[in-house]
């Protein structure tokens, strides 16, 4: 009988984490920024059909980077969980925190128990009645969660983009300015060399605080072109 080689748990986890990081770094970045009237999601995504940004519930949005099939199954699971909870209890009982928790548990289990970890990073953002109530959760491939304030980027060049965002972002920016900032940092740091990103290269959606029920709105390319040229 052949004896398998011993691999220390530290080594195993490190290898898995490196594998997941590499997969995520290959993808284009997503930026989430808070503005005066809500939260904006900006992704570099030339596809009109395969979304990186989506609605989870009335006041909760979802953004992801990494492998499409993996984050898509997580997105569907999140929509199911949110709708099931809202139907079983009440619409107000669906919270970003509970969804972020469910994702954290799921990603954590997949990371430790399966041979191949998910190569994804997620953001779950909930818009509150006032900007101080907004919540942005960033979830890593291993299930770790961080509660972000104001702005966050994930994907290939997340570090450089986050640094640039921290420079340009301030509280209570108008919507147009916040989206322009997100697009600017994506164009400047999203790839090895700066390039121009037009409306057709971007997927943008917002959670608008003042909307009565479903706050999630996708901005079509006409609206987006106006904002970018403004």
């Amino acid at each position: 009988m052949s004896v398998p080689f011993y691999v220390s748990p530290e080594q195993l986890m490190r290898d898995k984490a490196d594998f997941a990081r590499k997969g995520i770094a290959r993808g284009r970045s997503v930026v989430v920024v808070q503005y005066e009237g809500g939260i904006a999601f900006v992704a570099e995504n030339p596809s009109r059909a395969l979304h990186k940004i989506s609605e989870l519930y009335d006041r909760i949005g979802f953004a992801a980077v990494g492998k499409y099939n993996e984050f898509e199954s997580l997105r569907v699971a999140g929509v199911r969980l949110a709708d099931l909870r809202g139907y079983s209890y009440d619409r107000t009982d669906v919270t970003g925190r509970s969804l972020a928790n469910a994702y954290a548990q799921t990603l954590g289990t997949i990371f430790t128990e399966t041979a191949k970890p998910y190569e994804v990073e997620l953001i779950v953002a909930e818009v509150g009645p006032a900007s101080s109530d907004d919540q942005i959760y960033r979830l890593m491939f291993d299930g770790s969660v961080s509660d972000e304030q104001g702005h966050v980027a994930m994907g290939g060049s997340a570090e450089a983009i986050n640094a640039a965002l921290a420079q340009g972002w301030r509280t209570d920016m108008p919507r147009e300015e916040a989206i322009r900032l997100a697009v600017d940092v994506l164009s400047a740091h999203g790839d090895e060399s700066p390039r121009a990103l037009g409306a057709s290269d971007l997927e943008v959606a917002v959670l608008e605080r003042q909307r009565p029920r479903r706050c999630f709105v996708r901005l079509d390319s006409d609206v987006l072109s106006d904002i970018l040229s403004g």
Partner: protein
Amino acid sequence: MTSPSGLPRAFGLTGSASFAEFLATLHPDRLPAASTAQGATAPHGTTIVALRTADGVVMAGDRRATMGNVIAQHDIEKVFAADEFSVIGIAGTAGLAVELVRLFQVELEHYEKIEGVPLSLDGKANRLASMLRGQLGLAMQGLAVVPLLAGYDTARRTGRIFSYDVTGGRYEEHDFHAVGSGSAFARGSMKKLYRADASTSDAVRVALEALYDAADDDSATGGPDLARGIYPVVAVADSQGARILTEDEVGPDVERIVADRRTRQDGGTS
């Protein structure tokens, strides 16, 4: 709802975009159902009318729920926005009907979120038919729910109305329709007042007249209650979307109808 090791397997399965099917596999106990058949003692809702206009559709429902000979509620709401472009009204066992509408609303929104595009109006109408078929057992016990679906068809750019029977049969109505115990009187009224090219505000007036006539002759349909300020619920669906009119929008029309009928039984409309 979440196990210590993450979401249950059912959440991650590749399945249909139907919330009702998902609920039936995971929590069948949470589907609309009644444990014991007590048809006569469960509150019932009554008259709903819908008509097509030049721009879309108008739907209106009275506010009375009855329980045998007793008025169970004076201000029940039986007309709802189903989603962005459709409205639904319900007659029959109130508890089940309201629950069915709630499930239908989640069903439409769930599909839209999972698939990224809303269902077509025909798709919504068919989905409602199959949900009603699931209620057939209850209907046979006297707990029937009869909905009326109306909406703006964004592909055909026109308003459309769908009626149902308790077995889930789906029928498209061309001009106007009414369901519930007062529906025969309401239909008679609309037959005389309906104009295919009516504007939304004219159609709202026709719908209110029809409900007034239904309440006149059907004990289970409530007329406008001016003393309490309880008016019929009126919903409109057109290219701008579906919305429920506010009491301030409906109130003046209702008061005019009541005033006009003091002098002429036909309300002076013909």
